[in-house]
């Protein structure tokens, strides 16, 4: 159970990184990636996955 970032569409703005309550998102080689082991899809924390809610590009933070 995890989200992933479609890197070809990502603008590397970093909003998802600091909204993520689990510190699951980090910059690797200038691209943001989601660590599937840490991602909870925000279940039990928020109504919606925070990365997907803040991402400015449609369909870029999506279920893996």
């Amino acid at each position, binding site marked *: 159970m995890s989200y992933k970032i479609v890197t070809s569409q990502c603008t590397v703005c970093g*909003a998802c990184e600091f909204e993520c309550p689990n510190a699951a998102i980090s910059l690797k080689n200038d691209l943001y990636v989601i660590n599937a082991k840490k991602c909870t899809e925000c279940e039990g924390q928020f109504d919606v996955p925070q990365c997907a809610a803040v991402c400015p590009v449609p369909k870029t933070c999506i279920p893996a």
Partner: protein
Amino acid sequence: MAGQLIGLQDFADSGAETMREALSGGCSSSQCGSSDKPDSMPEEIWAKIKDHPCYSEEAHHYFARMHVAVAPACNIQCNYCNRKYDCANESRPGVVSEKLTPDQAQRKVITVANEVPQLSVLGIAGPGDACYDWKKTRETFGLISADIPDIKLCLSTNGLALPDHVDEIASMNIDHVTITINMVDPEIGVQIYPWIFYKNRRWTGLDASKILHERQMLGLEMLTERGILTKINSVMIPGVNDTHLLEVNRVVKEKGAFLHNIMPLISDPAHGTHYGLTGQRGPTPAELKALQDQLEGGAKLMRHCRQCRADAVGLLGEDRGQEFTLDQLAENVAYDPSRRVNYQTLVAEMRGEHEAAKRAASESLVDVQQAPSALVAIATKGGGRINQHFGHATEFQIYEISTHGIKFVGHRKTEQYCKGGWGEDATLDGVIAALEGVSAVLCGKIGDCPKESLAAAGIVATDDYALEWIEEGIGHWYEQVNGQQEQRQSA
């Protein structure tokens, strides 16, 4: 030396004497005294704005700003913005070529401060939102103000996260905050903002615009209470908020905004913005000016905005960002204040002379009776003088002159006519189109060929007033033109 056309940007490697020559264009008098502040303005406000090119039209002839793109994250979506678009040749807000970490920004600002003596202001304008991406904004300002204590700090924001950081903004001596406010009626906001991210969820429709509006008003009030100067940017979107901006102007003035800046919507399908893709047009220069003229008497208007990039460097009309990209910065840099200090001393002298020339030009208008008002385009490289070759201009500053006075009313961007020694006829047509409504072009130098083409289009172009102060030259031109007519009439 009086015949030389030296722009302020030309003396990066020069000493104080060359700076003086460049600024004076002939006179290097040091008895002119310090610059006068406008009579109506309190001393402490004048001290804050007199060297800020965005807050003072007069300062924009002398001082430069730079933006560092350390804040890429944003918490709202606007229909005029597409964050994916990124092009070095494109000049508009929200666009950058490279994002910087706070450490990289520190190196860049020090490098620029050592090479560009006009630098007076460091701004963070995204490319996302400086208040939402607050940790990076705060760290950057902290690092740089430790190295360059006299640099003015300013930031721009959409206002949504602003109220959370006003106290820190005040404690960090950030003197200037720009809020983009496009509406004070959420019903209109619905057409501008598809969504916002607030309190851990995405809001759309009327809810989004209501929240954004309330936060913008709260942020503005909090800044006003703390004596922080605010500039309100409004994007003029024909058919959406153009007439509504009168109401925006009234409300922000009431809440203490210092300056109101109406910017034309930039809309192009190639930018991939919602407005670009749906064919929403921007206003014409005439529509923009008509709205600005209607707003005279409300909150003080800014008319010299160039809608610069989130990584712009230099005087407002120029962008030297490409000279200071990351790969061109040294690993270790140390700030050397000498060039900026020399420059500031010289500007203090020159401004007194400029002010005196402006006053003299206004006073001499009394002698011109019953002349129509006219728009005059100026080619300038900065320093407040008519000092740029016609063919080198990428923009013209537009002044309106009437028997009541001379005032700056805006600028027109054009393509550079002269390219390495020859002029392009196709470009000249573009320049003539951009100068619609203008009666005369005053420049540092112009060849016979473009002069004749402009004359055929009904525009007088002349270098007779080269190196004069802008207002002085315009006044002389006006007197000459209208004086001749009077003589002809009386003959």
